């Protein structure tokens, strides 16, 4: 189940609805990071894209995408219109990145995710919380180390969060309570 994730409205933060151009994006980057940090709860933050008419790839790359590089930060896009998703996806695919988008409460991944990671993240979502050891039971042909690497890759993409339980690392989808 998703929970209400603390967040901020992007259009209100940058005070405009047509977000285009790398220079404008670079100028807005610090404002967006500040708003994201202020709104974040346990590193999670929802970027509410309602009201945005245009968000070009260049703008997203310069202003918003850097949030995914912040340490222990887990951004989720919400209320993103279809045409804006297309522009975001250009950047994500070019960077080998992926992001969660919540539309009407339904999570979906946009961007580049290979079939191996796709399968892994689906399993994380299905099971709620998993460790590499749990997934090793799923397919004995894939060792725990390989599952561990896949989960770590998802973590680096900010698609899952993790917590430590003794020597075990447990992973949950970023949007999950």
């Amino acid at each position, binding site marked *: 189940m998703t929970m209400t994730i603390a967040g901020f409205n992007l259009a209100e933060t940058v005070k405009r609805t047509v977000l*285009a151009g790398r*220079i404008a994006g670079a*100028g807005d980057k610090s404002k967006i990071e500040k708003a994201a940090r202020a709104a974040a709860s346990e590193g999670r933050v929802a970027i509410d894209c309602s009201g945005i008419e*245009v968000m070009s*790839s*260049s703008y997203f790359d310069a202003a918003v995408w850097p949030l995914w590089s912040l340490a222990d930060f887990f951004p989720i896009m919400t209320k993103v219109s279809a045409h804006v998703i297309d*522009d975001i996806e250009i950047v994500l695919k070019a960077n080998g990145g992926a992001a969660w988008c919540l539309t009407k409460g339904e999570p979906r991944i946009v961007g580049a995710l290979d079939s191996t990671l796709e399968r892994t993240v689906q399993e994380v979502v299905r099971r709620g919380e998993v460790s590499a050891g749990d997934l090793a039971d799923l397919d004995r042909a894939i060792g725990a180390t390989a599952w561990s690497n896949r989960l770590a890759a998802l973590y680096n993409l900010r698609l899952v969060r993790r917590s430590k339980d003794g020597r075990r690392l447990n992973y949950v989808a970023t949007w999950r309570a």
Partner: protein
Amino acid sequence: MMANSPMHSLDVLDNVLANIGTAGVKKPLHLDACRASLANRAEFAAMRRAWWRGSHADLLDQLPGRVDGLGELTGSLLVVGPTDSGEVHDVPEDQGGWEPGAPFLMFQERFKTALVNTGAPSPFAHGIVGALNEMASNAVEHAQSAAPPVSTFELFHDRWSFSVTDVGVGVLASLRTSPKYQMLKNEVMALQTAITDGVSSTARPGRGFGFTQVFRSLADRACSIRFRTTGALAVWEGVSPASQQLTMSPMPQRIGFHVAVSGSLATVRA
């Protein structure tokens, strides 16, 4: 006086560049309050064309008298102001100039409002302004010029248009700053490469999608596009442009990069 006529993109190019001084350095004209009629602007555009062709020495003497009502001469720069249907505006080179409420953003807002007031759907107007913004940002980032780029928009009779013109190094020199594009041999090849998705002189992933925004904003729309750089021209006229469909041709050398996009308001309203 010339009859009212729409300003062709070349007019726009000529209109926003002045040949300053004996060194022949092209610099953009600057903007200030002026209530020029479109007829006057067309006349001015004709003057600019002559200037561009090299007869500027004669025109320089005539200019102060001829531009009465069009703007003000500040030094050797002619200050051209907005009309109800179009504007010329400097593109700010620092991030502060792109802040909400800054003159350049207000200029874009007026373009958007003008489009919507003629019956263009709001999403289309937003897309076009986004495309203008991308091209303006590109010009600032890649021109490597001390003079700021200039942007225009115009709605005249049944046409809308915008342009961005810089007086920088042009596409070939810009791309060649990256080792990845050192192999580009000529201006046509460089222009063809530059408008392809993901191509940028930075050669970084996620860069080089500014032109994508232009093409996407014009999807399913009748339009014409003109990219002119130092020694090459790319043009397109039709519906739903794509980078690989532009007609490329070599051209006489000219400094900088110029993009002009225009379309029919009638098809936008449909």
